[in-house]
């Protein structure tokens, strides 16, 4: 499927909002891939971390529906290696926020089985609520 690249897309609200929330310099990424090469969870992701940035650079809103941003554990391995000083974990956080702002929770508490809910430590529950829900 081709990607339509246009002025409108590059100057899209996505780029502006992600930049505003994360304060990361999206366009300084030169796609070296070091973030992906070091990421311990890359296996579980549908887009590699460098691809997530690429999608944002090109204003592709569908990035908000990818799995990667939820899989990212904010371990900061990518941040440490990135030659351009981009904090990808922080960027993923911005993308999660934008997803959640559409009022689409990523976690539905009601769908969790009761036994599991009882077993889960409170702190885990609270942090996942913070990460996965609006």
């Amino acid at each position, binding site marked *: 499927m081709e990607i339509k690249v246009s002025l409108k897309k590059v100057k899209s609200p996505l780029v502006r909002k992600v930049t505003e929330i994360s304060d990361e310099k999206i366009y300084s990424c030169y796609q*070296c*891939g*070091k973030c*992906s*090469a*070091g*990421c311990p969870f890359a296996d579980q992701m549908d887009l590699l971390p*460098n691809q997530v940035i690429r999608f944002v650079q090109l204003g592709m809103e569908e990035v908000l529906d990818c799995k990667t941003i939820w899989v990212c554990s904010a371990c900061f391995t990518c941040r440490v*290696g990135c030659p351009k000083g981009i904090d990808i974990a922080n960027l993923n956080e911005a993308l999660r926020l934008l997803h959640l702002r559409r009022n689409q929770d990523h976690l539905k508490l009601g769908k969790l089985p009761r036994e599991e809910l009882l077993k889960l430590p409170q702190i885990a529950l609270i942090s996942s609520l913070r990460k996965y829900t609006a």
Partner: protein
Amino acid sequence: MIKVNERIGVFICHCGLNIAGTVNVEKVAEEISKCKGVVHAEHYIFMCSDPGQEKVRQTIKEKKLDGVIVAACSPDLHEHTFRSAAASAGLNPYRVEIANIREWVAWPHEGKGEEATEKAIKIIDAAIEKLRDNMALLPVEVPVTKKVLVIGGGIAGIQAALDCADAGLDVYLVERGQSIGGKMAQLSETFPTLDCPQCIETPKMTAVAQHPKIHLYAYSEIEDVNGYVGNFKVKIKRKPTFVDWDKCTGCRECMKVCPVKVPSEYERGIADRKAIYISFPQAVPNKAVIDAENCIRMKYGKGCGLCAKNCPSKAITFEGNGSIEEVKVGAIIVATGFDVMGVNSFGEYGYGKYKDVLDALQFERLLAPAGPTSGKVLRPSDGREPKEVVFVQCVGSRDPDNWHPYCSKICCMYIAKQAMLYKHAVPDGQAYVFYIDIRADGKGYEEFVHRAMTEDGVIYLRGKVGKIVEEGDKLRVYGVDTLTGRNVVIDADLVVLATAVEPSKGIDDLARKLRIQLDQDGWLSEAHLKLRPLESLTSGIFIAGAAQYIKDITDTVSQASGAAAKAIALLSRDKLEKEPIVATVDEEVCVGCGNCVSICTYNAVELDPELKVARVNEGLCEGCGACAATCPSGAIQLINNTKKQIFEMITALTRRD
């Protein structure tokens, strides 16, 4: 001060629409024509064009102008043009001033025509005020010593020295290592022609040794530099070799018996040398030196002495035979080259920890037919032939957040070469290259990389490596291929890192002695990156080779010949002319505090020991004005930039508000 009758002409340039698109040039001309002493004011579409310059010349003659203002672009661009034009019409060039109404007015104030026009008037008005007190000057004449100093004996220094010497100039070539040759002498073969350095560099090294005009100072360093263009005085320190070079024949008997082994700099640590050594077989000069830090006899003052016993020429003295010699030269060429980033960086790649993770210069030595393995590619850890080799590009380069922002420029090419040579050495092996971009921008370079890919089957993976860990006797490389969007894992036998290059160690100290500048990354600063890339900002000092910024051999040699040509041109004259904008001292006013002496970067000011007043050496003074700004009594001033002139300019700039 000469009396001026004040017949000033003002020429206002449109610069096409660059200036006239914003500034109302007609209004400017009208206003300026009302200024005191202005007898002519006009505007024209391109003042720098031939007809434009002709207007200036004509008007000088017809209206007997004694001063000219050109209101146009930055004086950097055309001050020289208009001063020469005026001179050809008989007006002293220093009676011409440029008022910059393009970079200072039209460009920054685009779209604000009215304000810009007012500002242009003020700036021209101020220039007129300065011009009123400008003295007519003659250039300062200085004599010339027709000799050249070349610092650094890599291929850049070698080429520059040979060119200057062939032009008949005496050359002092100073190399701090035991031998000349630089990095090129360490290479296996060179891209894109695959010439071996022994075939193409060694003959040049021999030519240096044999040239009657070249005085080679190997194992030497620059101690001190004084003087100015045409007349530098340089102290060269010969470091103690503890061997009498007049007697040493280079037979190497000493090295056979010396019991001390030290990692060899030439072999980049993958093989040893002795405490007494000659760096490599083709070394020039072919003379031994003792490394006093490691020699047993030198350390303890007694014992060992095996080398001396074995030396058939009785050349080894163990006596500190260093010396300092002073030479006079007219020009200096700096060719101090570069270093390759070393161990203890790049922890994620296990560099310095895993024996089979090498930097590219070490790998050059493994590939070199005359290297420690005689060109066989063998793993340092166990001597096995590696069947899978991973090359990683851009290690520490293009990495502003951790190391260096710049591209090291040569590594894309030498990695292609190394991968290719590895395949030639191990035909059943496989080479992989992790790259971000491939920069192959020279004659035959793209074709060379193409050859590595197609003929030698080198697999290029687009992405960086995240980490390398040892797994058994393999190195597990975790990388990415951004083109498939997949992470990549390779179990390699050997890893080669294209580590970033850096300016050579000690360059900051040398630059201070030479009073030349370095850029933010430590490379030598050129006078202008585009138009004066071979000159430093200090007249008479030229720069060549990788010291200015990393470059390959082709570019290094071209730049070296270019710098040599510049030096030859400079020294072809019997006298040199220098800008007469220098500092002058009013001895009546000077209190002898010496502030100017200590602030001057060019050592141009001295205190007269008897009269206790400052004296300026016009040859040394670069007219920077630092002394004038620091003088508490206003005694030292820059000609044509006096305090009075500056205050008049400020008044002119403010009086219309």
